[in-house]
């Protein structure tokens, strides 16, 4: 099946259940809210190696934040609520508490809660105070530029989805990257999702296992163009590069919507940029409980 000259495989992306949470980071300016958010998201690419998958969902106007300052919503996904909470605690403590002018609030509103300010508040060494307004409790931790305000808890979604994906194949590496960048930007407009890898794009897709003992994942040789001829390749002779966009979302619908938006962008602009094919990563459907069939997500 081809759309706009781009082949779409009859396959599906296989995704996994995850625990997802979120925070709203505010600061005096959007620049500093973003700096804190980007720092907190650093080394948050794959839950396997980084402990959590973290990224910016979207920027928030002053009207949308609890304190009326510019803000950024960051989402964090982990294997379990406990591992997500542990990652949240260290990342907020090291990257948001330390950022000038920052404050940190719940970014997900669910009945089930995990600690947000319960750890960082102890940085106050007994000088911290709290204030409960309505249903929310805020900690005020004295720091050198004033006070770091942090909400006590945030929500956690236990049926979030990690690992939605599309693979973009083509014969022009630069054009492929430009297309993938545009797709990531379009996905940025979908609420409740993140693309956790660098710039939202992965060039090192992996397969399960390795010839080396102890390595749980290794390079996806079937999709490595330079190995064509040596391995059972999945690539056509003219394919010289493959890029993957991995999507995590608080809901299955949001992941499906993000894949749809991403595919539409690739199909709209990809052909002149050298894109020849779209496929998706899966493990035969036996590992992940969420399957997103590409052809059902066509615009």
């Amino acid at each position, binding site marked *: 099946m081809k759309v706009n000259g781009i082949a779409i495989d009859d396959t599906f992306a296989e995704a996994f259940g995850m625990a997802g949470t979120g925070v709203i980071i505010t600061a005096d300016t959007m620049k500093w809210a973003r700096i804190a958010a980007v720092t907190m998201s650093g080394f948050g690419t794959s839950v396997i190696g980084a402990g959590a998958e973290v990224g910016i969902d979207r920027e928030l106007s002053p009207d949308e934040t*609890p*304190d*009326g*300052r510019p803000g950024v919503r960051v989402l964090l996904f982990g294997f379990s609520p406990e591992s997500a909470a542990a990652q949240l605690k260290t990342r907020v403590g090291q990257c948001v508490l330390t950022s000038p002018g920052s*404050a940190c609030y719940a970014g997900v509103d669910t009945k089930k809660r995990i600690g947000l300010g319960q750890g960082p508040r102890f940085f106050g060494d007994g*000088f911290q*105070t*709290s*204030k*409960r*307004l*309505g249903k929310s409790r*805020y900690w*005020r931790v004295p720091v050198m530029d*004033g*006070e770091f*305000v942090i909400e006590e808890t945030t929500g956690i979604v236990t049926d979030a989805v990690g690992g939605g994906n599309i693979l973009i194949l083509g014969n022009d590496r630069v054009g492929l990257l430009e297309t993938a960048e545009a797709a990531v930007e379009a996905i940025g407009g979908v609420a409740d999702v993140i693309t956790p890898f660098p710039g939202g794009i992965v060039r090192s897709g992996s397969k399960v296992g390795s010839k080396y003992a102890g390595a749980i994942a290794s390079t996806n040789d079937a999709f490595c163009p330079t190995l064509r001829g040596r391995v059972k390749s999945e690539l056509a002779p003219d394919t010289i590069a493959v890029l993957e966009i991995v999507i995590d979302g608080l809901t299955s619908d949001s992941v499906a919507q993000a894949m749809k938006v991403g595919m539409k962008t690739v199909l709209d602009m990809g052909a002149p940029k050298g894109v020849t094919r779209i496929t998706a990563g899966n493990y035969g459907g036996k590992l992940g409980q969420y399957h997103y069939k590409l052809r059902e997500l066509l615009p």
Partner: protein
Amino acid sequence: MSGLTFRANSAPSERLNLSHLTPKRIAELSQSELMALNVGTTTKTLKLGDVFTVSGSAGDSVRIEGATNRMDFVGSDLKEGTVIVEGDVGLSAGRNLRGGRLDIRGDAGALLGSGISGGEILVKGSAGSLVGGLSPGDKFGMTGGLIAIEGDAGDRAGDRMRRGTIYVRGRCGSFAGSRMVGGTIWTELGFGTDPGMLLRRGTLIGPSVERMLPTFADAGDHDIVILRILSRYMASVLGAAAPKALPGKVRKFAGDLATIGKGELLITS
């Protein structure tokens, strides 16, 4: 919003205890049981039907018309729904309120909102002493919720208050926030003498203080983020009746240093 309306026939001959008149409680009563409720406070049994004419049908609100300052415990233990009072109320209105809204369209007596832990109390007029304060036998004053007073508040507002917010569009009397262990008191027209006496934690906000205790330390001018959240919280609860947002910078005085000193008095002008 549907509910029963209780109209006072005449000025009561004794102080009344109207703690029974919440939507949930009266919904559990038949008409005859309702009219036979003892609302008196003396050995002479005074039935509700002797004092009030009742109209309407049970619902999520109660309306009391012709109220006077001899009617005590109005809206007491309210958990949900609304109690609207046309007129004044006496002692301990909204005592131990846990949810819902008590809307008093007159003045309130002493101990307004004593022991409340949730919900809102709105007063169109002024309130007496010990707003949200400690009642004898209690461990703390208010522990949550919001009390908003359009007029003035008497002395010792928020006495031994632990959580929640008291907003006074007028002026607070003397010793506001005495023995307070948490929460917020915000006055638009300033505090009387010695606010925050033995304040342990909590926030007092106002444009002026008639006389400051010597046990409060000047901590300088600051842009305090929590005040932005407070302003937004008030707007979310009170809507158009919410106060103007607090200024970016306030002068902070830390105290009461005669205790643990983790409280603060914030001067807005």
